[in-house]
């Protein structure tokens, strides 16, 4: 079978990119939230023995967080197989905004004016980068 026409190839690539971007963002936000929830109950790890880290990994919330981060890893690797790192990083940073909002909603962390300003800047940055083609070449492949 010969190469699909460029137009459908681009449309397909764009769709794939969108699906995997959403997957990367959702798994990283929920994974971090779960880790944070677990570690908050666990107490400080700093200046404790290495065994404390091992026990932390078996906390149910931390374990769930690790499982979600494994999915995140797989999704990000797939995404990086066709999209540039300089595209993937800024675009998936929308996750920081969701994490901040999740921290506010579920962990009752405060959201200062500075944080809101940060959220606005990130959204603007993501919109800028998302306008560029995800792949290094419109030409090759």
């Amino acid at each position, binding site marked *: 079978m010969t190469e699909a026409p460029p137009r459908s190839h681009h449309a397909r690539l764009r769709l794939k990119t969108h699906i995997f971007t959403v997957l990367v963002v959702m798994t990283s936000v929920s994974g971090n939230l779960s880790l944070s929830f677990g570690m908050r109950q666990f107490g400080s790890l700093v200046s404790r023995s290495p065994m404390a880290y091992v026990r932390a990994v078996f906390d149910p919330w931390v374990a769930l967080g690790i499982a979600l981060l494994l999915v995140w890893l797989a999704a990000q690797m797939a995404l990086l197989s066709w999209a540039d*790192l300089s595209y993937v990083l800024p675009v998936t940073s929308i996750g920081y905004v969701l994490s901040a909002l999740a921290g506010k909603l579920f962990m009752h962390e405060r959201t200062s004016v500075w944080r809101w300003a940060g959220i606005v800047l990130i959204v603007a940055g993501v919109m800028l980068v998302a306008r560029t083609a995800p792949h290094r070449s419109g030409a090759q492949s």
Partner: protein
Amino acid sequence: MKWLLVAIIAVATTVSDVLQAAAMKSHGEIRDFRPGALGRLFALLVRNRLILASVAVMAVSFFAFIALLSIADLSFAVPATAASYVLETVLAKYLLREPVTLERWAGASLVACGVALLSL
């Protein structure tokens, strides 16, 4: 202590991301998502040195991250780990030879500033 952990996380994340991107770039676009093909892909990737190195560095970053979470809020920890934004974009351009256009520089810089503000 907080900022030492942040520094470890930032450096380890950067190295891990660049190694991972280099490995996946040389593999090329994943097109086949059927379970058999994904299984073969997994077998291929776990033997890839760049991927193994990336995962090892990511483990360092992960344990530093949960240590940080045990002493700081999620909304401090997550933004602080993103201190590596501009550095990663520079490495993407010069090491991975990606076309970093003006829009991408501007976007990455805005994100970096925004992320820094988030940790305040």
